[in-house]
């Protein structure tokens, strides 16, 4: 079996894998990082979004062998293990941006990426448009939009701010 080496949440990992292993399977099954979820099989729901070399990608549509040598950040690595929550995580809690929690890791990773690309001052329209790749069945998106706007502002504040990578 071919070997893959990655940096996942700051830690180097190396493993032999079946070539057909998707990044999401590698994270969930090899590394037991089960915060990254699978909600569809057509690359649409966004429950599997992680950051690959600093950019949001769908880990269900990425062969782990394709990204050998890359750096991956998952929801588990967004904030320091013993530190405070990432401002975007905190914003989701404060604004009730989640209900069942299943889409939440992907939403938060997408939201941080959105801020990285679009800045800290995000209006309602921009956020809704940029959420095109993330489905939520519980919240009607209302409080997710609110959470992201607040999280984006908080990320500018510096407190606990860090690049996701």
């Amino acid at each position: 079996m071919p070997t893959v080496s990655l940096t996942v949440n700051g830690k180097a990992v190396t493993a032999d894998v079946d070539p057909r292993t998707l990044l999401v399977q590698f994270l969930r099954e090899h590394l037991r990082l089960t915060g990254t979820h699978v909600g569809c099989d057509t690359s649409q729901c966004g429950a599997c979004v992680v950051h690959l070399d600093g950019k949001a990608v769908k880990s269900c549509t990425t062969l782990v062998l394709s990204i050998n040598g890359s750096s991956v950040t998952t929801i588990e690595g967004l904030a320091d293990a013993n530190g405070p929550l990432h401002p975007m995580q905190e914003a989701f809690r404060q604004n009730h941006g989640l209900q069942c929690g299943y889409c939440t890791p992907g939403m938060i990773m997408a939201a941080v990426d959105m801020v990285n690309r679009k800045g800290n001052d995000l209006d309602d329209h921009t956020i809704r448009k940029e959420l095109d790749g993330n489905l939520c069945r519980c919240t009607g998106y209302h409080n997710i939009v609110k959470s992201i706007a607040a999280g984006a502002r908080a990320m500018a504040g510096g407190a606990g701010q860090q690049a996701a990578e």
Partner: protein
Amino acid sequence: MYNFTFHQPTTLRQAVNLLAKNEDAKLLAGGHSLLPVMKQRLASPAAIIDISRIPELSGVELKGRSVVVGAGTTHSEVANSQVLKDSIPGLAEVPASIGDPHVRHRGTIGGSIANNDPNADYPAAALGLGATIITNKRRIAADDFFQGMFTTALEPNEIITKMQFPIAKKCAYQKFKHPASGFALVGVFVSKRGSDVRVAVTGAGANGVFRVPEFEAALKKRFNAKSLDGLSVSADGMNNDIHAGPEYRAHLVGVLARRAVADANARKD
């Protein structure tokens, strides 16, 4: 997925050799067309040749009166390219409606054009701009390249390396999104470059991307949405699915063409 052997060449030459050596091999760029099909077990390549790490396939470059875009350029790189925004703004705007931000970080323009999905956006842009598709072997005009849904002029062992887009400031893309997939229910790309006017339609035709000569002729006389008044395309040969029937699709072609012309005209030269 069925199992396969995995190769990740770092030069075009290696990729071509691997393609020649491996029977039933598929090229993988961003993977957003191929992997979903493989996951559904609707494709079973024996070998995957991942061309995402070949430096020769990347980059956006101004070359005389055209812009050359590497096949491996991702959708988000196209959208953010200042060269494209300045010289072919209508093309730079196309990827904004492809997939979603995460997909755009991985999906590539070359992959989209090689796949020629009948509902994809880039084929309309390539045909609507009169682009040239450059492979490891030859140059192919867009008019000759797209040959029906999921069918192109590409031969086995041929890899798209670049696309050459003639500069056309007056161009625009209008898309009516499929409410589920986000692909084009109908998409219309229009461009005007000197006396050359092109109208290319994706999503609507059962046989993939096509041009609309009647619209082009009318717009050649006067590049204005009003020139299309009274003109329509036939519903014959239009796609039919649960979201849009042939008649509605044909109607949308006219609506979106008018809107695209208006958008193109709204640009400052």
